[in-house]
């Protein structure tokens, strides 16, 4: 893979549900999030997941900037949410 963002090596945001369940008590991929770069606001499940050997990146489907970065270091796991300026959960 070349790392080209137009390639097809990505999954739906839904694929991040398992790893993110370590941080959030609810299913956060169903929540709406706002991209800190372009302002697009939609369910995180509609963003693109790029898995890699040490975690995953969630990218905005509008501007392709990084919304969320998860790094799994074995005995600890880190979450960088800099690319999300707002998250809205729906209560059921």
């Amino acid at each position, binding site marked *: 893979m070349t790392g080209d963002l137009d390639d097809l090596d990505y*999954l739906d945001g*839904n694929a991040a*549900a*398992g790893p993110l*369940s370590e941080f959030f008590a609810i299913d956060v991929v169903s929540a709406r999030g706002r991209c800190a770069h372009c302002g697009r606001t939609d369910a995180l499940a509609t963003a693109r997941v790029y898995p890699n050997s040490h975690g995953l990146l969630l990218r905005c489907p509008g501007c392709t900037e990084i919304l969320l970065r998860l790094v799994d270091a074995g005995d600890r796991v880190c979450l960088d949410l800099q690319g999300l300026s707002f998250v809205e959960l729906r209560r059921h």
Partner: protein
Amino acid sequence: MKTGWNVAEVIEVTQETRTARTLRLRLPGLAGHRAGQHVDVRLSAPDGYTAVRSYSVASASPGDELDLTVEELADGEVSPYLVRQVAVGDQLEVRGPVGGWFVWDPADPSPVQLIAGGSGVVPLMAMLRAHTAAAGSASPGGAAPFRLLYSVRGPDAVYYGAELDDLARLPLVDVTVVYTREAPAGSNEPPRRLDAATLVRSTLPAADNPAVFVCGATAFVETVADWLVQAGHSPARIKTERYGGTGTRP
């Protein structure tokens, strides 16, 4: 939803095709799940190396059992073990079921269009099974029309064939199978790739405003979602689940 990693026991194994098996797991403490959810499976080597993969749940039972149908990928790290080696009585580490987006809600009265490419049929089968279960209840979704369009390489690659034939006889359910490489014996129709015209002809019209679920390889999902939008479906009504891989377009 069960949180964190839990140990499930394999209680039944069924060969679906030459390259795919269904594993029935028992996950103590689980009280059902939502149709369309997946679980993560973690395999650990003695040296500490781990590999995690996601597999959709095919079943729609209310208890502590789950069916996963796994297709063996030639260069896979996890699927060859699950398809060739795992036996009844073995234990697997699983997380979930998780995912609250690509799910069918029995309380939703909307008509439903399911579109599967190959093994993408797995979570859609859970929705069909949940619909059948809801049809005998007061859930509004049980009275909704359900259609499945299933694009598959050939008759040997079809999952759940006999059950799909039975479901297709139900008044509310419609199943269309498109064979892309090899047609069934005795069929008059040559194998052909799914195209936009066939898609429009064999799916619920945009005017019905159906909830649409598309699952398959990334290229399949991209192409089908584009055709649906061109046919007038609202992008907000189309939910997709790419299972990755570069795969082929329809």
